[in-house]
């Protein structure tokens, strides 16, 4: 695909607004559905069916950002970082339904802050340990952390490794966390193939390519407006306290939709770019020590044009169980983006502007450390300090920024 010969790739950007539902009505409908499910649970007496299990968790705390270079963006905040509510029910033998709602970052519809997501809604048929089918909205298997990134009782972090963290979006605008890992899938098959003490895990899934309007002022249908799908999977090995795996996800992304692109002063519609995301994860434990790491590479097929949006991400974590209750860790994350172009957001909901920036790469370094304390099984106090450094190889494009982020939080599950 040549940058100056893209007319044949024009996509149909027509959106139908006839099925739009106001956000408030949709939110109220969900709450009513939730109430009906919980209230009606005991009356659904079917063979192999179980009761509805209701459980959840939340993480709340205090964070402080201190800018060390520009002096801008200093701030402190209390926040309800995350709250999740789950419903699970065994519908029949081998059939399970699962439903998850997620509230992020002091969510309030009245104050228009934070996020409220229908995170998961699926039905699973478990044939055996070796084969299960899951249908519906789900989080796809990609590396180790993707499926548990929002399960705050399971992870020691307040700020997760960069590609899994959305709370820094207001501070580090260039972090497109949804570019690195697939966020949603709609059908998957997965299982574990045992070989004595070794276990081979596999997962294959399909879902949407993320080709949805970026205009926040227009209602977004949530429907993929292209004719591509996302296909991905993970292959992993577990042996004792060792876990390792490789992951891949392929889709096509209309990355330039709604951005005005100026190429030699000629507007052009580039269409969708094939994207391949590759990942590798490695974890092992030795006595009280634990080690965890991931690597992700994002490759766009730009057919030899000037565009090159390769991205790399790595994190490594070393942890130590001081006791059953105390856990400490040191962590390092590195993100490298090699844009030949940059997407610069504009104020007041105007579409971002894309401009070419030759021979420049951006790096984000995040060394950090933390300590957690579990006074009880379902209560976890966390603390974390992170030194975030944003650097560009060409300081005239971006002079750099450094943040010190400190945070404490409380994670509770019930």
């Amino acid at each position, binding site marked *: 695909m040549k940058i100056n010969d893209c007319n044949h790739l024009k996509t149909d950007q027509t959106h139908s607004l006839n099925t739009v539902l106001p956000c408030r009505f949709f939110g109220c409908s969900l709450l009513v559905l939730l109430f009906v499910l919980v209230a009606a649970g005991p009356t659904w007496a079917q063979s192999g069916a179980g009761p509805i299990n209701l459980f959840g968790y939340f993480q709340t705390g205090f964070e402080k950002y201190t800018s060390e270079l520009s002096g801008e963006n200093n701030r402190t905040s209390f926040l309800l970082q995350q709250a999740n509510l789950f419903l699970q029910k065994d519908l029949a*033998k081998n059939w*399970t339904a699962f439903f998850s709602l997620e509230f992020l970052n002091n969510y309030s519809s009245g104050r228009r802050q934070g996020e409220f997501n229908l995170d998961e809604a699926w039905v699973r048929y478990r044939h055996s*340990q070796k084969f299960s089918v899951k249908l519906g909205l789900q989080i796809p298997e990609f590396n180790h952390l993707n499926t548990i990134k929002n*399960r705050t009782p*399971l992870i020691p972090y307040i700020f997760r490794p960069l590609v899994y963290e959305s709370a820094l979006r207001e501070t580090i605008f260039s972090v497109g966390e949804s570019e690195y890992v697939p966020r949603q899938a709609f059908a998957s098959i997965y299982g574990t193939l045992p070989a*004595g003490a070794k276990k081979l895990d596999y997962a294959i899934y399909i879902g949407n390519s993320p080709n949805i309007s970026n205009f926040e002022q227009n209602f977004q249908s949530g429907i993929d407006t292209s004719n591509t799908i996302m296909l991905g999977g993970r292959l992993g090995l577990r042996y004792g306290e060792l876990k390792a795996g490789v992951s891949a996800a392929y889709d096509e992304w209309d990355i330039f939709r709604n951005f005005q692109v100026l190429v030699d002063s000629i507007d052009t519609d580039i269409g969708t770019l094939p994207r391949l995301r590759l990942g590798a994860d490695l974890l092992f434990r030795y006595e009280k020590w634990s080690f965890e790491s991931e690597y992700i590479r994002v490759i766009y097929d730009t057919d030899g044009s000037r565009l090159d949006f390769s991205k790399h991400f790595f994190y490594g974590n070393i942890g130590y169980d001081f006791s059953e209750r105390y856990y400490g860790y040191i962590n390092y994350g590195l993100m490298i983006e090699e844009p030949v172009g940059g997407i610069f957001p504009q104020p007041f909901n105007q579409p971002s502007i894309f401009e070419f920036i030759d021979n420049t790469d951006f790096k984000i370094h995040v060394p950090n450390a933390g300590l957690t304390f*579990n006074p009880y099984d379902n209560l976890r106090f966390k603390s974390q300090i992170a030194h975030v450094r944003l650097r560009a190889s060409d300081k005239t494009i971006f002079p750099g920024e450094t943040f010190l982020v400190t945070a404490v939080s409380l994670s509770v599950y019930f």
Partner: protein
Amino acid sequence: MLSGSLCLWGQDRESDQIVVIAHEQVTVETLSLQQLRDFYLRDLMSWPDDQTIVLFDLKPRSETKKIFYEYLGKSSSRIKSIWLKKMLSGEGEPPEAVESEEAMVQKVAETPGALGFVRRKFVDTAVKIVMVIETAKK
């Protein structure tokens, strides 16, 4: 007199052995360590005849529980983390925790497909022993 004392001492040691018990209708007669790990770490959810496994755990901290977890090769916090991950992913529920070893025997006896662990002295004819835990072995 001496041989009688040795005999009694052996019986005491045997009664303090940790055993894995199952519902009497479970078709498995013996379990391997790998199978026990797969069951308690929720990698396997069914018996070979496809009957759902119902696991039980001891609620209070005790020597019995400590030895059982050590035999599985995992710390208490690690096992609980694995169970929590399964629950929050919709892949399985943690075992039901019972208050005592007597309660464990009763629960296993009355629950089809059940699996639990107690000291031998609490075992009665209502349950079957499918494994004897050798404390020197991991």
